[in-house]
């Protein structure tokens, strides 16, 4: 693999590549994210943002209590989020655990949801604490069952102890398994990496290793997709594009629960990476509760009043 000519796969070259990254000033990044959060998105732009956000949702259920019934219900919702309004777009993908992938794919295909992807969390999600053999098998299983997207976690322990080459090699290995059959999203668990310097470093590491998307969090650790963390990652994909002409996607996940939060994310994308990223191909939002709030806000814009929550489906 060429790694975009940025590294040659050796530890020395990876170290050198990461050492060229500029630092991130936390106070400044927080301030920029806070300023962008003041953008006032109303009327036609709000309507556009709501539909765009719906199409970017990775509708997620990642629970020990997940069943076939639950996953099928989620798939139905994913294809047709509002059963009373066909103009509502489908979401980007459903996101499930490894053993639910086959059920999700089959059900989506059955109900005309061929265009909705199935994302499988992988590599011993959420902790990443397993042997490489297990992580490989985890990914292979999911792809064989029909996953079109793999959401892998990085080994945060290796990253925090400075063994970047291990993190890099894991991503490279998983990417090879994905091949052309599945898109690879690399989850950093930014709440465990803690510093923005680490987030920037992890972003560049994952992009060089072959990530198609970089993703903030598992949803199991707080804080997750805070606006400044997403800002730092969007700056990273923007800068990576300038270096390689390759557009890597970004997926915030965790803590984005309502329309306001989602619109703030879209503003961050628009004014940081740029409008070219404002498509489900390059930006996804990992969420569960968010979708219903987007639907409620959409109805409110059409009808002029807030409907009872009973008018959106609980799945």
């Amino acid at each position: 693999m060429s790694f975009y000519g940025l590294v040659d796969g050796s530890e020395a070259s990876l170290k050198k590549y990461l050492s060229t990254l500029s630092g991130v000033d936390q106070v400044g990044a927080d301030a920029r994210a806070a300023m962008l959060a003041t953008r006032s998105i109303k009327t036609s732009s709000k309507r556009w943002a709501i539909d765009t956000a719906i199409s970017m949702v990775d509708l997620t259920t990642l629970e020990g209590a997940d069943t076939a019934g639950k996953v099928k219900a989620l798939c139905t919702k994913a294809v047709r989020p509002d059963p009373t309004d066909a103009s509502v777009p489908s979401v980007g993908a459903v996101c499930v655990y490894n053993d639910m992938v086959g059920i999700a794919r089959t059900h989506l295909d059955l109900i005309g949801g061929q265009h909705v992807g199935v994302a499988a969390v992988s590599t011993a999600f959420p902790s990443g604490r397993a042997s490489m053999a297990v992580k490989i098998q985890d990914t292979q299983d999911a792809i064989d069952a029909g996953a079109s997207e793999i959401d892998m976690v990085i080994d945060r322990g290796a990253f925090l102890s400075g063994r970047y080459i291990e993190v890099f090699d894991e991503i490279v290995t998983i990417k090879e398994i994905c091949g052309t059959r599945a898109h690879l999203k690399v989850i950093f668990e930014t709440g465990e990496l803690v510093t923005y310097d680490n987030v920037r470093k992890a972003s560049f590491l994952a992009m060089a290793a072959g990530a198609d998307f970089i993703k903030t969090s598992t949803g199991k650790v707080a804080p997750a997709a805070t606006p400044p963390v997403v800002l730092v990652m969007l700056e990273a994909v923007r800068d990576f594009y300038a270096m390689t002409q390759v557009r890597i996607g970004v997926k915030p996940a965790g803590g984005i629960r309502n329309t306001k939060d989602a619109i703030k994310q879209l503003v961050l994308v628009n004014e940081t990476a740029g409008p070219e990223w404002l498509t489900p191909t390059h930006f996804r939002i990992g969420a569960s509760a968010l979708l219903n709030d987007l639907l409620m806000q959409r109805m409110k814009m059409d009808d002029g009043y807030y409907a009872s929550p009973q008018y959106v489906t609980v799945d």
Partner: protein
Amino acid sequence: MGEKLSFEYAPAPESRAIVSIKPKYGHFIGGKFVAGNKHFPTINPATEEVLSQISLAGKSEVDAAVKAARKAYSSTWSKMSGKERGKYLFRIARIMQERSREFAVLESLDNGKPIRESRDVDVPLAAAHFFYHAGWADKLEFAGLGTSTKPHGVAGQIIPWNFPLLMLAWKVAPALAAGNTVVLKPAETTSLTALLFAEVCQQAELPAGVVNIVTGDGSTGSLIVNHPGIDKIAFTGSTEVGKIIARAVAPTNKSVTLELGGKAANIVFEDAAIDEAVEGIVNGIFFNQGHVCCAGSRLIVQESITEELLEKLKNRMAKIRVGDPLDKNTDLGAINSKEQLLKIRELSATGDSEGAERWSAPCDLPSKGFWFAPTIFTGVTQSHRIAREEIFGPVLSVLTFRTPQEAIDKANNTPFGLSAGVWSEKGSKVLWASQQLRAGVIWANTFNKFDPTSPFGGYKESGWGREGGRHGLSAYLKGVSHE
């Protein structure tokens, strides 16, 4: 849907219904609004719409204001305990917060600055100055300025048009806390928020004559500066006028503080956090249309990162939203006056003619009103006029350096010394640079941050004295013994 890539923000204008502007204003003297004689229009610089007619104070009005201030000083304010004075200041601060939206909208209408700035910066900071100084009013003996300080008496205060309400707060709050009464003149293009502040004084039941506001132009300012009944002059504005004032008060007993121009260096070292440095550069020069005396108008960047930094800066500048100041998404509003716009154009033209390279962000400027696109000049050297003179607009001069000492030498090579910025992730370098820079305020890895507790003021031609903090308070007291 899904086809459209661009995220166009629909107009999000703040309603102006909250403000009621009278067709004509007088002066605020002795606790009452009194009619003026001559009038001149004040306009919205974003549309050139005439907002109101402002009175031009002549000798009789200034005399009346000084007389009212003297009377209030002798009979009421100087006899009142600090604790009681503090209560009035707290009350004013609270009313300013309660009426913050009204102040913000009026400020944006009259000045042209974006509502985001008037709402999030100017008005909250103005209230903060009153809160801060309210706390000092009954603790002057403990400010470390000596135990036998006394107010000067009547303070004459002349403020600029770039932060009309905030500069009023910087002047009035410490003066009142220290026990002075004031005669204040707002700038001729931006009198409206000062006149609204006069209403707040009434609402707070501030004793008549403690605050007097006379409006007018330089001739009114001159009457205040030369008035024998005034004990202290505080001026914020151009260095040119500052020098005139310094000459005028030199043969008198008047105390004086001057907060004047600047040509601040914003130094970016190669080890800076580059995206945040870009934000800091943008905030340094494009905040408030560059109408900021401490604006980071000279970017001094290490040669090794110049190309990368400028590319990022241009990319960022292209995202600056220029337009309707009342739109909540506007980043850069209107130039305050035609006169100022012409000055910016003239100085920018010298940048072209002296061989610097101009780049302006692509943006549609409204056809009416006074506008100037965010602009940078590269290839600027120390001998260019745009590297030496204050443009006071959204125009950045970019210079480069090779070694840290060269950066410092260039930064200090100016008649001004109000502020400076240093960008580096290396703490030792930041501390070293801050010690070498000859400027009153040094920001490290940030820019244009203000706080009432922090003294603000300049070296050299940037002024005399400090405003804010204990240092600023001391300017409104006599008998100060510095520890």
